[in-house]
Structure formats: structure tokens, C-alpha cells
């Protein structure tokens, strides 16, 4: 079967791709998608640890449930902010919305 390290390396790769996306992208929705990638890598890591190291208590799987819940809440809120920003500034690029105060 597939050893634990394979899952860890896979999730490390997904996470660093997400970090690159968050830092490099201009569009706020693309930044949000990269955040989703990072959250998924974290969930994968949690569940791999739960399956291999903690199969009698599966705390990692429970944490993954909470990660998914928080991700859903975060997506709804962030998209509301993006739509609000687009209505006020006619842009959804994060580098054009850099002023802290009007």
C-alpha cells in the first residue's frame, strides 16, 4: 500500500502551490481559490495522519470536518466582500484596492 510519506509530500506540493497563488495573483477570487488549495492540503494531511497514526480516535478526520466548515463560511464571506469591492471600486484586483481609508 501507499506509505504515509507519499500523502505528506503530495499535500506539501499542493500547499506550496497555494502559497505561490496567494502571493502572485492579482484577482481576489483567484487568491481565494489558492487559499482553498491550501486548506485542502491541510485537510489531506490531517486525514492521512488520522488514518495512519491515530486509527482508533481519528481526531484528524474530525479536524478535517471543521476545516471544511470554516472554509465554506470563509468562501461565502470573502465572495461577499469581493462583490462589495467590485461595486464600490469597479475592480476585483487586490493591488488596486490598497488604500486603507478613503
Amino acid at each position: 500500500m501507499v506509505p504515509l510519506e507519499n500523502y505528506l509530500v503530495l499535500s506539501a506540493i499542493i500547499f506550496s502551490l497555494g502559497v505561490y497563488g496567494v502571493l502572485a495573483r492579482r484577482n481576489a477570487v483567484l487568491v481565494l481559490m489558492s487559499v482553498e488549495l491550501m486548506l485542502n492540503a491541510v485537510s489531506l494531511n490531517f486525514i492521512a495522519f488520522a488514518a495512519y497514526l491515530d486509527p482508533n480516535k481519528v481526531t484528524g478526520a474530525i479536524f478535517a470536518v471543521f476545516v471544511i466548515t470554516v472554509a465554506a463560511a470563509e468562501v461565502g464571506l470573502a465572495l461577499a466582500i469581493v462583490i462589495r469591492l467590485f461595486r464600490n471600486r469597479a475592480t476585483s484586483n487586490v493591488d488596486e484596492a490598497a488604500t486603507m481609508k478613503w
Partner: protein
Amino acid sequence: MATEVLWWIFAAAIVGTSAGVVFSRSVIHSAIFLILSLGGVGAMYVFLTVEFLALVQFLIYGGAVTVLILLALMLTRVDASGKPERVNGTQAPWALIVGGVLGALLVIVALKTTWPGNLSDKPAQIDLNLISQRLFVDFGAPFVIASVLLLVALVGAIILARQEDGD
């Protein structure tokens, strides 16, 4: 053996589609790649014998989150001309360095650390009864708090996105 071949196919697909999300020039292509990548991670949950979470992944991410993201993309389109706009900031090369260094570090740490327990063993079949017992009994209070969090976030999203009079 067949499982391992399938695993490598899915792993390669996940890495490829995740790279597609962050490197694609078109915003819509990124969203499509994101759906595929999230679905692949759901397949990984099946490999880890957590079928319940795989279903949750397909329903919530594949269904709800990507629809929301596509909707937001549709609502925030600027150029009707269809010419490709600049999707990366000027800091993109630095971001590549940061992401590459972080990824290399994480891979090295994951491979060098000796984890406790039997690593190359087949993951134990995770019982759904066990998950529900842990979720609703041992983690009952965080579960309720998470539902309150969802409610607050939804109310906040509605208030933020609402069309106000005189706006």
C-alpha cells in the same frame, strides 16, 4: 498493486490540476482546474478509507464552493472584449521563490522525520460509527460552535453584499 498505480495517477492529476489553478492565464480555466483538483483530493480520501469525508468533499467543494466562486467570477467580469488581462502581480517571481523554498522545506521535513507508528501499513478501515461518535459526543461543543459560526458568516455575507438604498 493496482491501488498503487491508481494512487500515482490521481496524485499526478492533483499536482497537475493544482498547478493549473495557480499558473493558468484564464480565470475561468483556473476555476475548472480547481474543481478537478478538489475532486482528486476527494479521491485521496477514498484511498484513505474515509468515504464519508470524500462524500462531504464532493458535495461541499465540488458542489457549493465552486458554484459560488464561478458566480463571483461572473459578477466581477470587467472586460467584455475578451482580451487576456494581466492575472499576476509584479511580485510573481518572488512568490515563485517563496513557494518553491517552502515546498522544498516541507517535502524534506516530511521525508526526514521519523513518525511514530507503522507507516507503510495499509490504513485501518475507518468506521463511520467511530467518526460520528467522535464528532457528536467528544467534539459536540465545537460542532455546535461551528454551526453558529456558519450562521454568523452567512448573515454577515448577506449584510455585506446587500444592495442598499442610495448606493
